[in-house]
């Protein structure tokens, strides 16, 4: 008789699951047909797990943007409402989140998640349902070669171009002053590797010899051996394709070995406000590309910085700015086309409009190529007298570039 009970238990469970899942779906759905109701925007972000730190930054940026829009008359006269889900830094979840946002929560628009690793699966879902997909983080080349025709990256430049101004500056130096050898260490992450290898390509073209080329897994915490290799090579310039803590660890490990490069460039980490606290006095001369600075004099930026600072108590960083930019980009398209609903026709109009037009944002005017790559460049910052300042390009510079990095 066990047989039947076995089956019965299974059947019972399945039946109850079906009813429960039906329950789960009801209640939360608010269909987003055209009308006077709020415009519902769906977002999935890594609020827990490995990418949670930047994920929360993006969340702050999105929320600040939504409040700002609502305080200033809304979008198409309608309020903006955000539905933010947590994808737990997991690719399976991010896809299922957008599936839920689009099908169950009936959102009118979607904004992108954080991190290259999550952008691709999310963009796939958005594309399948014909949604415009503007994303704040997903700068790696791989994002743009997947054939997505709905994707736009809301920042000035893709990862490979982050160091363009620095490469130009080095190229402009007299032959004798250029670095002769370079050491690269990059995290095995499409974005972080993209930045370091973008500069590597440029430097190698100039004849700068690559003496160390290391890639380390994202979970690396012991940089002793990598630092030993770099220190042993005595490279003139060290380039770190880093996120955050890996840069801190690497710099500490390099200092432990007494290595003194003439130039040191690390992506992302130095722009983090906690970076000088973690490194202490030894930040002087460290270079970093950035897509955003609160000091930039783009039309809407001052207002953004003021609004955000008042709201959060500190000026926005890059993640927040990119989120805000995403909002600005979508809003520009929505205002121009005059629609914001999940209907594929409306979404296609939004996509088409962005292909053709330039949008003024807090990170500058943005245009995109046919694959969604932004066509700008990143600014180069450097720690000068203990403060992080823009040093390149010259027309935007707040301080002079230090060519010989002081000892750290």
């Amino acid at each position, binding site marked *: 008789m066990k047989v039947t009970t076995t*089956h019965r238990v*299974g059947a019972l469970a399945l039946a109850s699951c079906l009813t429960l899942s039906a329950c789960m779906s009801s209640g939360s759905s608010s269909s987003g047909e055209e009308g006077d109701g709020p415009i519902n925007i769906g977002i999935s972000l890594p609020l827990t797990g490995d990418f949670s730190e930047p994920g929360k930054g993006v969340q702050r940026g999105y929320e600040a943007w939504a409040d700002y829009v609502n305080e200033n008359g809304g979008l198409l006269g309608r309020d903006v409402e955000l539905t933010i889900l947590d994808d*737990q830094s997991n690719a399976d979840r991010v896809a299922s989140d957008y599936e839920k946002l689009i099908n169950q929560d009936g959102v009118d628009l979607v904004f992108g998640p954080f991190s290259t690793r999550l952008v691709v699966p999310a963009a796939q879902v958005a594309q*399948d349902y014909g949604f415009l997909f503007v994303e704040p983080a997903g700068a790696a080349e791989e994002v743009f070669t997947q054939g997505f025709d709905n994707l736009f990256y809301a920042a000035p430049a893709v990862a490979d171009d982050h160091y363009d101004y620095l490469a130009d500056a080095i190229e402009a130096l007299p032959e004798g002053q250029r670095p002769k050898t370079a050491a690269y260490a990059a995290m095995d992450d499409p974005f972080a590797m993209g930045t370091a290898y973008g500069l590597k390509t440029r430097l190698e073209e100039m004849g700068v010899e690559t003496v160390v080329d290391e890639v380390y897994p994202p979970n690396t915490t012991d940089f002793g051996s990598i630092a030993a290799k770099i220190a042993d090579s005595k490279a003139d310039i060290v380039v770190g394709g880093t996120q955050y803590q890996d840069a801190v660890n690497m710099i500490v490990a390099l200092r432990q070995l007494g290595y003194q490069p003439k130039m040191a460039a690390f992506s992302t980490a130095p722009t983090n406000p906690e970076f000088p606290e973690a490194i202490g006095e030894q930040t002087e001369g460290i270079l970093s590309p950035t897509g955003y600075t609160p000091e930039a004099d783009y039309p809407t930026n001052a207002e953004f910085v003021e609004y955000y600072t008042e709201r959060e108590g500190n000026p926005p960083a890059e993640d927040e700015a990119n989120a805000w930019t995403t909002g600005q980009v979508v809003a520009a398209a929505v205002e121009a086309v005059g629609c914001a609903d999940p209907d594929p026709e409306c979404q296609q109009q939004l996509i088409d409009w962005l292909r053709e037009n330039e949008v003024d944002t807090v990170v500058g005017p943005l245009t995109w190529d046919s694959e969604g790559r932004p066509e700008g460049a990143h600014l180069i910052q450097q720690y000068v007298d203990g403060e992080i300042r823009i040093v390149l390009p010259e027309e935007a510079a707040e301080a002079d570039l230090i060519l010989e990095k002081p000892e750290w």
Partner: protein
Amino acid sequence: MRSASDTTTATSTGRGGMLLKGAGLLVLAALVLAFPAMAPDPFILSVGVVIMSYAVLATSWNFVGGFTGYISLGHASYSGLGAYATALLVIHTGINPWVAMLLGGLVVAALAVPIGIASLRVRGASFVIVSIAMVLILLLVFQSWGEVTGGSNGLRVPRPFGPDVLRPEQHERFFYLHAALLAVALLAWWAIDRSRFGTGLKAIREDEDKAQSLGVPTFSYKLTAFVVSAFFTALGGGLYALWFGFLDPIFQFSILVGSYMVLMSLLGGIRSLFGPFLGAVIVGYAVEFFKNQYGDTQFHLVAMGLLLGIVVLFMPDGIIPAVSSLLRRFRPEAASIREVSQADLAEQRRRTSSPSTSGTARVASPADGESTGDADDGSPDRLSEGVQR
């Protein structure tokens, strides 16, 4: 044991039992097949696909976990390998995706042979260690070997159905495909369960030493079960890859995925044919529920840990045995020849049994679904002593 006993009980209770059994199966199949039509929106349907995928994986895991009692925490290795094998075959050779999936499964099965030899020569502990090590090493390799695997950039998997098949339609098709694969896996499990081979495997689970001394070729039996398990797991991984369309090593070779398979099987009941399936439905639903409720915290890990701990401590045989024994208590016809409850019986045996009566006798004894064998003091540390086998 449960299912082995199923057959005996079914024949002993005769035609009525068979009919009920058939009816139960039909209802179950009808429910599964009706799900896509009943799902209110594509999101629910996609959750259904995920749950079916989990059911396939958990059932596949149960070929080794349920039959031999060897618990693998690293079956994500085989689902991940299956996924990558399928994807790479499709991308590089352009063959039919379904053929690629099957080939992928065979490749993984072939790979499972040396892995199985290394990890099954010794008992328990090393098997677990190797299973976890496999996930970690594959993560490293697939992450670093970027030219082939796409590395940390991930790998897009071409869709088997054209762009004219809309996403909800894709979900529906893949739901049925997963259901079909699940049916095949269940059928295979059921066939092994009834076979001599299955009896041998279960003898290993109850007491490996005695099984061996009774002439069961334990090593080759374990290895076969392991390879079959890897094969089905790889098929499950391949099918999921074709549906999901994007592979990233950190999500494919994740210890969490492997532990979900264990949790599901254990929760449902590793000795029951439908145990892993039931577990997958419960856990799959619970995951969605917890995410809805506690989405913004790390609580899902804690919840999963606690659930696993509770199952291990209080319900190591899973829900199906627990519930069905509960149900049986209230049913007059269940009191056939045996008046004593399983627990009594097991207790009785524990006190009186001499080694010769446990062993194989238990393998055939219908009512013993209660434990993986008695606390047989003759070999308390068989793991350490079995190291040389």
